[in-house]
């Protein structure tokens, strides 16, 4: 006997993500999902961005990691509220993990929650978390061919950050090729050149984010 299911494979995750989205909208909290390879500079860029924004927003960071607590400790050390999620081996965050992390946060009092996803350019893509926007951080030492090798993640990004531009002189990184590679996949996402280390470009990117965080907060008032 044939049984017709016609449902998304990730329906369970999609449903939980939709619930997260409703919850975040109700409290006027913007959720930013940060995607990148291991070591591209997610934690450093998050900290530089939040330092630039100062006290303009009430912020928390959710750190996704396969096993350690290092990044959450680093965030807390800068005086920012942080929750650690250990995925227990999974190479990406899923909506139910984020839901539990949101339980641990005073959402009514937060304007912005930053989700540092597990360092991976493939696995997180299909898992909606209920985020308001997704950014991809690529970094100069990884090479300019990342959009050619991992097209999907660049295709779904709302913004792309090219980090570690301070290291450009050391690497043969062709920025034109990188930009063209991103454009071929994604016509809309702005590309920000940043250095989380020197602070170069962080302001421009942070203002892009701030505009969207304000819009979400305003919509809930």
């Amino acid at each position, binding site marked *: 006997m044939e049984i017709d299911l016609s449902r998304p494979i990730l329906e369970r995750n999609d449903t939980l993500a939709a619930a997260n989205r409703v919850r975040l909208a109700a409290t006027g909290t913007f959720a930013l999902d940060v995607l990148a390879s291991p070591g591209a500079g997610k934690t450093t860029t998050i900290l530089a961005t939040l330092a630039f924004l100062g006290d303009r927003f009430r912020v928390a960071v959710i750190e996704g990691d396969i096993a350690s607590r290092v990044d959450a400790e680093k965030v807390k050390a800068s005086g920012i509220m942080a929750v650690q999620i250990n995925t227990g081996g999974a190479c990406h965050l899923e909506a139910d993990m984020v839901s539990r992390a949101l339980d641990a946060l005073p959402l009514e009092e937060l304007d912005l929650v930053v989700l540092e996803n597990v360092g991976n350019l493939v696995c997180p893509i299909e898992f909606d978390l209920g985020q308001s926007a997704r950014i991809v951080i690529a970094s100069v030492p990884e090479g300019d061919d990342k959009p050619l090798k991992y*097209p999907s993640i660049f295709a779904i990004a709302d913004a792309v950050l090219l980090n570690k531009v301070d290291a450009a002189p050391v690497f043969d990184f062709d920025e034109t090729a990188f930009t063209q590679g991103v*454009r*071929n996949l994604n016509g809309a996402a702005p590309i920000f050149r940043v250095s989380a280390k020197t602070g170069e470009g962080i302001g421009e990117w942070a203002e892009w984010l701030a505009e969207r965080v304000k819009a979400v907060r305003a919509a809930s008032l």
Partner: protein
Amino acid sequence: MTQEILNAITQAAEGAGATRINSVRVTIGELTEIVPDALQFAWEALTPGTLAEGSVLEVVETGGRSICLDCTKEFSHDRFERRCTSCGSYATKVISGDELLIDDIDVDLAEDASDGEAEG
């Protein structure tokens, strides 16, 4: 991903009172990061000891297709380039190729279990 498929179909099969899952059909878009061969491999690893043991996983692949927001033409494309092939615009929107669906399953019900065995 494979575990999600297995959980969903096991639940559906049990709900229908099935004793065995013979085959499963899923649709995987070319623009997703899911590799059908990897799914097959995982299927063989995860199904033993479940209702789907020995079942066939049929993967229907859909190609990438987008519509141009500037010239409104539709065009086919691979994972690596989404630019409009007519006017070169970057402002395009995917209309197919990003599917991840469980379509249907074929099961044996308790009463036709002998039937199922005859079919192999």
